[in-house]
């Protein structure tokens, strides 16, 4: 693969441990290795590791190897990383490039946290984040030694593991580390401001976010009241933390554009405060020595880990190696997503054909899902593409296989449909459950999307078709039966498919994921609302605190959003666009929860400002229907999802819909629910 294959082996944990024994004795050998002008007299090297590299790009030949050292000087611990001179593999890098990455005697009082990465395959690496928010590029430990690096630091500096993430080590952190980690995710608010300069909430949000502490507006008054004054002060820096961390991770990109970015940022006054902020050193720095470290009034945040390489999607272990090499590219990708990428035009037929090979297989389903995630699908193409998105067709099926499947499925559908079609009147008289189910479905289909021409008018055959499919489904999945909301989910599918049996099977596929929403005990919805509350806690702590204070943490006001995937919140066309984006499961299977957070955040100043209680909030949320900007919301949700990263996914319990259930057999409550009343 590349020249460092051997080092991959050395990254094996046992090997690394054994290496550490060796290097430990070496590292305490004094200061004889001093080779940098930045090291001063009287310093003691307490840790030294060779072959610690920085990867400015994904290209192996552009990797820069160097020497990592921890130096004790007076009461301070300093870290240096100096690239080797005249290294052949980095011939393409100028000395200037190298010096850009050189870490010269950074005191640990300036370091906020260290994030440890120990992938099963590939090198261990660490990301060192400064209290200013800047992060150094990942340091790859080709010869192991990461564990020892941390152990050595611990001997000299107060180092604690983040409660939120066992791989984050907080430097000089005395307050509740969990809160620190959570509050580090304040960025998205700033994002949403940046995202919606014209929105009505922007002015108050911005004064909230950008104030240096002198102005007290309504929001900050609330925050102070809750003893969280620090939030206000730190908002600008959150932005810098996030943005700069991302920039520094994508070092090459950063090198080229950082200065331009900062110029631009200064231009609109957005970052400038943030930058000034961490020029004010006293606010962010610590007295390093010992345990009587005193915290500045204003706290310092653990930068979010959002920019880690695999944080946005769950990758199987054997993908990790591949991911490693794509890290930087991936980060680059995400970088431009910090504000949510601009939406693209929907996927059209011509482009669609480029995703298929000669047999009709989708060549790169990931690329396809990504494309749809950012732009959706053109109307006429939905019929074809939705079948893949919903899982009715597999991506690697051929034209012929799909055609065959369709014919099989058609007859299967007819068989199931006949099960209820053949029930005679006499039989139905003695079949209460069937009658009731049918009556319930019939009541609902006549009030489902009747304003859409496709479903309007008396004796509309499409309405009948809705009924037939739902009744057939209630026989296909007798345990789950029919529940209100299902007709809302089916209606756009039938509209798109224009075919009864295909619609049925697509609906079946959708219900594999969303079925638990309709369980009698509502556990599917409750687990999503629970995850939502955790996500808001993570991504918008002030709003979370507000909901807590108002006893609104059950999030029932989002029930309708979750149950039918925002079907009632957008018009028919927009709903279909949203759904196809959600169904890509591109960034997360649970993007819809980030959509919830995005909408709530957009309105948070109103919610908090008007001191909405549960009732008012429910009303407010219900009345947002038809007034939500889909594209802006999707961009916000995307940014939130990326910022939350692994921490976000950790908020969502395994098996939360629309994740596929682990065991289909125990999926539905077997209780004879329709007879309970």
């Amino acid at each position, binding site marked *: 693969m590349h020249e460092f294959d051997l080092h991959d082996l050395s990254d094996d944990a046992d090997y690394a441990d054994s290496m550490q024994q060796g290097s430990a004795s070496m590292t305490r050998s004094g200061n004889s290795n001093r080779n940098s002008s930045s090291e001063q007299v009287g310093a003691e090297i307490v840790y030294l590791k060779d072959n610690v590299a920085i990867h400015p790009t994904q290209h192996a030949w552009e990797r820069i190897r160097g020497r990592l050292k921890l130096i004790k000087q007076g009461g301070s611990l300093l870290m240096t990383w100096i690239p080797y001179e005249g290294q052949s593999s980095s011939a393409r890098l100028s000395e200037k490039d190298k010096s850009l990455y050189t870490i010269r005697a950074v005191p640990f009082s300036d370091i906020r946290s260290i994030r440890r990465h120990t992938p099963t395959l590939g090198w261990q690496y660490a990301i060192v984040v400064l209290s200013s928010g800047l992060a150094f590029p990942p340091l790859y430990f080709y010869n192991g030694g990461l564990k020892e690096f941390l152990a050595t630091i611990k001997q000299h500096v107060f180092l604690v593991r983040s409660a939120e993430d066992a791989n984050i080590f907080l430097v000089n952190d005395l307050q509740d580390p969990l809160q620190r980690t959570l509050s580090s995710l304040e960025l998205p608010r700033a994002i949403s401001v940046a995202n919606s300069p014209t929105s009505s909430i922007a002015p108050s949000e911005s004064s909230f976010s950008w104030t240096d502490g002198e102005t007290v507006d309504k929001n900050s008054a609330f925050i102070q009241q809750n003893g969280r004054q620090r939030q206000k002060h730190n908002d600008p820096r959150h932005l810098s933390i996030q943005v700069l961390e991302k920039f520094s991770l994508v070092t090459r990109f950063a090198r080229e554009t950082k200065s331009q970015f900062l110029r631009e940022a200064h231009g609109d006054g957005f970052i400038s405060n943030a930058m000034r902020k961490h020029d004010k050193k006293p606010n962010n720095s610590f007295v390093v020595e010992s345990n009587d470290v005193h915290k500045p009034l204003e706290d310092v945040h653990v930068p979010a880990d959002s920019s880690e390489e695999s944080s946005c999607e769950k990758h199987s272990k054997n993908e990790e190696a591949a991911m490693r090499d794509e890290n930087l590219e991936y980060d680059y990708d995400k970088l431009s997503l910090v504000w949510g990428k601009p939406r693209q035009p929907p996927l059209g037929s011509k482009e669609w054909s480029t995703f298929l090979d000669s047999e009709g297989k989708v060549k790169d389903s990931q690329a396809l899902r990504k494309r749809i995630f950012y732009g959706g699908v053109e109307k006429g193409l939905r019929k074809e593409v939705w079948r893949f998105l919903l899982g009715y067709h597999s991506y690697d099926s051929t034209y012929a296989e799909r055609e065959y499947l369709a014919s099989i499925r058609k007859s299967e559908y007819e068989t199931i449909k006949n099960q209820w079609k053949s029930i005679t009147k006499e039989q139905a008289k003695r079949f209460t459950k069937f009658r*009731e189910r049918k009556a*319930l479905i019939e*009541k*609902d289909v006549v*009030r*489902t999307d*009747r*304003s859409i021409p496709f479903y309007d008018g008396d004796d509309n055959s499409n309405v009948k078709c809705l009924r037939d499919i739902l009744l057939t489904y209630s026989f296909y999945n007798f345990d789950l039966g029919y*529940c*209100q*909301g299902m*007709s*809302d989910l089916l209606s756009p599918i039938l509209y798109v498919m224009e075919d009864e049996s295909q619609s049925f099977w697509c609906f079946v596929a959708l219900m594999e994921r969303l079925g638990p929403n*309709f*369980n*009698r*005990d*509502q556990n599917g919805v*409750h687990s999503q609302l629970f995850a939502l509350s955790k996500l808001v806690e993570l991504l918008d702590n002030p709003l979370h605190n507000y909901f807590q204070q108002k*006893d609104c943490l*059950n999030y*029932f006001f989002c*029930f*309708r959003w979750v*149950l*039918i995937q925002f079907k*009632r919140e957008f018009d028919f066309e927009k709903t279909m666009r949203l759904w196809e984006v959600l169904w890509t499961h591109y960034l997360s299977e649970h993007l819809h929860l980030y959509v919830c957070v995005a909408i709530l955040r957009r309105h948070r100043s109103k919610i908090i400002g008007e001191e909405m*209680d*549960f*009732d*008012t909030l*429910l*009303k407010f949320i*219900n009345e947002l229907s038809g007034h939500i900007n889909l594209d802006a919301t999707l961009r916000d949700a995307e940014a939130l999802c990326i910022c939350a990263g692994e921490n976000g996914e950790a908020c969502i319990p395994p098996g939360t819909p629309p994740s596929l259930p682990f065991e289909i057999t125990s999926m539905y409550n077997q209780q004879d*629910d*329709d007879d*309970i*009343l």
Partner: protein
Amino acid sequence: MPSRRRTLLKVIILGDSGVGKTSLMNQYVNKKFSNQYKATIGADFLTKEVQFEDRLFTLQIWDTAGQERFQSLGVAFYRGADCCVLVYDVNSMKSFENLNNWREEFLIQASPSDPENFPFVVLGNKVDVDGGNSRVVSEKKARAWCASKGNIPYFETSAKEGTNVEEAFQCIAKNALKSGEEEEIYLPDTIDVAASSQQRTGGCEC
């Protein structure tokens, strides 16, 4: 305690799916009827100012999903209710038979301080359908059930035509108000204690 007046009265409408809960609420508040209401998902409410003996009240009318599967949400929506409206469709025996279940479910989930005397009002809706020819629940039968449950006031309504809707809700408001006042009598004199012990979500007492 005449000085303590309640300004918000919370009313919950319950009943089987499709009996006309949303329609009744809209007919009363907006004087409108639509054939295009969608099945209610979750819950929603409308408010209406009502005057009663020179005092102004806000009637907060909660419309809930009719499918019993959604009842786990009841706890959040029912609490603090001052009156519960049970609706059935006079053309559906099942919806009438279910009234008892709705009533019991409400009492369990809302757990009012005095369940024996908690005010319910029963509405037999859709009396207009088919000129009354498809009717399967007689007024007599309905009234008998209401009498057996502690003389629950009963109205026959048509949300579509507006028949009896205003009258029914006047009665509902009156009962809600009475319930609130009676509740207050049981409570100690201290306003703070009363307010917190009732755990109102939307209510306030001035």
